[in-house]
């Protein structure tokens, strides 16, 4: 199992849950040049991120290379209680993908 790249802070407040996510990822755009060789560094970035709560998709993002390094995304969804589990699935343009979980606080 690869190391988790997502840091998730989810807080239930009233009938809503506020989710803040940060992924540790270089988000290489494919437009930067290697300073030593002058060659382009191949793109390596997160393309898709899906968040599920109780089997229901609550958020889905398609991202391009213009998302900053270490992407940050925040959103709210209705429902969710303390202790519930969020399931995050991400995919890289290289085809790599993983599923991570976090608990709502």
């Amino acid at each position, binding site marked *: 199992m690869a190391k988790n790249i997502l840091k998730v802070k989810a807080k239930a407040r009233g009938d809503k849950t506020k989710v803040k996510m940060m992924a540790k990822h270089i988000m290489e755009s494919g437009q930067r040049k290697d300073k030593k060789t002058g060659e382009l560094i191949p793109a390596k970035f997160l393309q898709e991120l899906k968040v599920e709560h109780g089997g229901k*998709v609550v958020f889905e*993002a398609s991202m*391009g290379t*213009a998302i*900053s390094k270490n992407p940050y995304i925040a959103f*709210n969804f209705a429902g969710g209680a303390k202790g519930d589990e969020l399931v995050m699935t991400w995919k890289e343009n290289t085809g790599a993908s993983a599923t991570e979980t976090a608990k709502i606080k």
Partner: protein
Amino acid sequence: MSMNRRTVVKAIAAGGALIGASVMMPRAAMAAWAESAFKADKQDAAMNALLGSSEAADSAEVTLKAPDIAENGAVVPVTVRTSMANVESISIFVENNPNPLVAEFMIPAGTDADVSTRLRMGKTSKVTAVVKADGKLFSAAKEVKVTIGGCGG
């Protein structure tokens, strides 16, 4: 002997097909990522590819929060919010980026149309947020000045 050889060949072919299928699987799953839209180098083309139209009505109900001046183009915090009902997706475009489409966020029912993220800007540009609600497109735009570009280097 010949039968034996045949079964071996068959087994290999079947194995090959299996490997092929397993390689194809993630590709098929990736189809959701709108490659043509993300690769487009003009905002109109990107909007057409992603949303089927490059026409979005300016709307006061769409709020785009972005800095007036971004000192560092590599990290520009942006928040898009709308009070509209039945929002399907929120997309963000940066006109002067090599690929204007930054990201598309799907908003399922129950999720607030209120998303914050951080994006890269190559140079001073208009940032446009496009909200798809009830099958129609609405937008809000803002000019963001960039002191240091976030692309290249």
